[in-house]
């Protein structure tokens, strides 16, 4: 059942992406409204996908790569929908929809069977740790997307050749501000994820910290984002520099995640 719902979600996000592209070309507000409704519909199916998988597995579906990518995508769309409640920023759909779609397509190529977990791992710490980690990552994904939007809009303004997306994107200040806000949400979540991960590690393996690749990389990521937050708060990093930094940090985050998963190093490999 969850597989069927999963593919319905993929189709909805695909449609939302295509309609968003049509908006980027036509600049027609009605088109982006349709895209927004489509992604919302997709989100409802996505929620049902995760819910039904949770029910079928009798545990939080936060274990194998297929599951966490789907969760990641779901959280990105959820944050998008929350942002849309407060900001008139329809064009964001054109960035979130392809991103969420890409995550789901990657997930669709991965083994989708529900794997039984070792009883030692079956703990609410799994839900909390993985949930926090990916909620944090989803906020970082948003800083990444806002960073891209910032660089596009900045390019138009600096080159003085306005046109195309210039008319659709909001002001630089808003993009910078939203990117910063997402960072301030993402960072504490990542911090908590590392702490809960350590506690869980102690509970399962008897050691808080074992310098296995996942832990090491999450610490590196933590330092990257700590530096960005620090730079923004004290040195006055903003605009282009902060946007570039956010983009590069996220690329490091995602590639370390993928590489570790692919080579199944360390303790986290149990989830492969």
């Amino acid at each position, binding site marked *: 059942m969850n597989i069927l719902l999963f593919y319905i979600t993929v189709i909805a996000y695909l449609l939302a992406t295509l309609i968003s592209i049509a908006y980027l070309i*036509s*600049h*027609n*507000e009605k088109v982006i409204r349709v895209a927004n409704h489509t992604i919302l519909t997709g989100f409802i199916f996505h929620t049902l996908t995760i819910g039904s998988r949770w029910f079928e597995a009798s545990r939080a579906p936060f274990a194998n790569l297929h599951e966490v990518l789907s969760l990641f995508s779901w959280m990105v769309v959820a944050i998008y929908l929350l942002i849309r409640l407060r900001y008139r920023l329809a064009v964001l759909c054109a960035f979130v929809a392809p991103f969420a779609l890409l995550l789901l397509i990657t997930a669709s190529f991965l083994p989708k069977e529900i794997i039984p977990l070792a009883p030692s791992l079956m703990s609410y710490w799994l839900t909390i740790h993985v949930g926090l980690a990916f909620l944090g990552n989803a906020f970082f994904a948003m800083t990444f997307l806002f960073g891209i939007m910032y660089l596009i*809009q900045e390019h138009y*303004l*600096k080159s*003085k*050749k*306005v*046109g195309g997306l*210039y*008319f659709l*994107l*909001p*002001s*630089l*200040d*808003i993009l910078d*501000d939203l990117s910063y806000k997402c960072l301030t949400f993402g960072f504490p979540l990542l911090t908590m994820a590392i702490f809960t991960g350590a506690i869980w590690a102690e509970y399962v393996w008897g050691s808080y910290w074992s310098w296995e690749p996942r832990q090491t990389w999450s610490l590196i990521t933590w330092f990257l984002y700590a530096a960005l937050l620090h730079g923004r708060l004290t*040195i*006055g*990093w*903003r*605009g*282009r*520099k902060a946007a570039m930094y956010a983009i590069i940090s996220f690329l490091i985050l995602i590639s370390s995640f993928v590489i570790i998963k692919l080579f199944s190093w360390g303790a986290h490999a149990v989830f492969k």
Partner: protein
Amino acid sequence: MHIVVVGLSHKTAPVEIREKLSFPSQTIGEPLNRLCTSYEINEGVIVSTCNRVEIFAVTRDAEKGLWHVKKFLSDYHNIPLEQLDEHLYSHTSEDAVKHLFRVCAGLDSMVLGEPQILGQAKDAYGYALQHKTAGVIMNKLFHKSFSVAKRIRTETKIGSNAVSISYAAVELAKKIFNSLTDKSVMLIGAGEMAELAAKHLLSSGVQEIIVANRTYEKAVEMARCFKGTPIMFREFTHYLKKVDIIIVSTAAPKYIIHPEQIEEVIKERKNRSMFFIDISVPRNVDPLINNIDNIYLYNVDDLQGVVAANLKERAKEAKEAENIINEEIDNFYRWVKSLDVVPTIVALKKKLEDIRKGEMEKALSMVNGLQEKDIQAIDAMTRAIINKIIHDPVTHLKKEANKVEGDFYIEAARRLFDLNEESLKGEEKLVEKK
């Protein structure tokens, strides 16, 4: 009944012709009345602006009507029709309606989507009302075109991108800063365009404005009219870090703002963006400052480029506007058609009523000894019979009139009941007076 338009605009006629054919608004009553004295023309509205002269009319016959309007235009201005004809365009029915919708929405204007034409069309319609040359059809037509123009303005972004340099500067500021209400402006030097840009910024919410001028008295005077703060010219560099938008327009022959200076300023501002607008020629701001992060510099040519891009964007929106117009034309014509069915129904009712009255008289003259009460009863009965017979055909006629084949139903009703043209025309007048 046909709607026609004859006109000329900046697209078809040079200004020498347009000025000869214009109708000054002070004396528009006379031509309006003269236009409508013709038997062929029932209603008329004259729209006359510096870019166009258009005569909208409701005529009995499309071809004859067009000819009469053209003739009127040439007679009134004493210009032979042959000379005029090459500059004139004319449309009838749907095309005429479409033309008015497009004109009111600014789709036919020199600057695409400009809003003034709507006001001018409203004035023109007002004059026609005042001189009683606008009737049922023109009322509906003009009101409809005003609401269509309004709908286009709200549903498309045809009027949203600036097409003047000073306003383009404001829009750029809005693409850099989130809101202008907490931003401050410095005006260095004076000049029409710079002052206009400052004025637009103020009306977009900017609260604080600082004015620097080589002549301090001038600065004081300008500051008073912008409710700003005057400063000495040599002091302006100290204020750079406090302001977000800087408009430069001095007569200095060289750069007065340099990259090294701005690098210092932006550091002190903790990288909060600054927007420089250099309107002076020769330029007063070193173009290299645009390479500094969070600094945006636009000169006159850059702003001109933005305006050109905005016009292109408007052209994109115009396509959407055309769709709205096509939709609204259908709505309007549904109403026009229903108007055709009304005289038919009135004529039908009148014919039956005439028959009833005639037959009543005949019958009453043959029968004796009826009391007043009996006559009333018979009268009521015949009336009821007629109403019941006529009820269904009338309902169906009204319903079918809005459909494509509506004309056939109306035509059939006319033939079946032998409602000739004469009786219809009489009724048409009656409807118009209502």
